[in-house]
């Protein structure tokens, strides 16, 4: 079973990398970009086919390692 964990910065946390990318997009002349926030995506292959168990395991993985919940949010999707 394939799953995806998406980790994003919480609102209000300064994201200088996102800002730099935003600036680069503007300088490339790509119009209509209001703002950029950078995050991380983890594509994870889960054993078995119990979606609820997989969701719980990946939530634990996110809490313990994948996200720093002081500044980051995470989302678990079973694909």
């Amino acid at each position, binding site marked *: 079973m394939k799953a995806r964990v998406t980790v994003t910065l919480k609102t209000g*946390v*300064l994201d*200088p*990398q996102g800002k*730099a990318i935003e600036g680069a997009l503007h300088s490339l002349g790509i119009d209509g970009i209001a703002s950029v926030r950078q995050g991380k995506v983890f594509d994870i292959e889960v054993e078995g086919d119990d979606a609820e168990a997989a969701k719980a395991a990946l939530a634990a993985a996110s809490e*313990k*390692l*994948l996200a*720093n919940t*002081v*500044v980051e949010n995470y989302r678990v999707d079973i694909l």
Partner: protein
Amino acid sequence: MKAAIVLFPGSNREGDAARALRQAGADTQIVWHDDHALPDRTDLVVLPGGFSYGDYLRCGAIAGRAKIMDAVRAHAARGGYVLGICNGFQILCESGLLPGVLMRNRDLRFVCKRQFLRVERNDTVFTRVYKKHQAIDVAIAHGEGNYEAHEETIRELEDQGRVAFRYCNAQAQVGGEANPNGSTNDIAGIYSEKLNVLGMMPHPENLIDPLVGGIDGRGLFASLVAA
């Protein structure tokens, strides 16, 4: 004073930390991150600077969950001393031994230069030979040193006197241009609640020899050895 310096894959300041501690009169031993236990009668654990695990995921994230960190947590809970420098500070935050997080520097640059710090208090085991509000001349070398935490955590740190060092200029004036990375309240280092764990971004271990231009870093190690 018996000091254990933890070596993670990618640590690179363990030699400097050992040298500074030995100069101050401590016994030092290097401990591998995959070990379960600290050497008997360890007084001080040092998490040195470097780039543990290549800064993968987040700085200090993987090292913060290494086997040896359970022993370090137990050591800290017993009141043992723990010093995390640079990447070691990041590891302390990731391991839950200190609150908050070190974010990317405000201007995205890796900053490597001499830096003054104001000693916020001199009644801890780490700073007793310094004067209160003394400006000490040390070094910084980091890309992720921008300290951030929840508003209430910052308030707690301030109210409990747990800010160890702030970025300042040679005249001990804090903040403004003297802040190299955008760190909240110009924080360069913080203590745990019991003041036995110190995490700091700057490198006192690099300013212990007149040959490199300064010896202000010695005070921290001399303080610890006198503990």
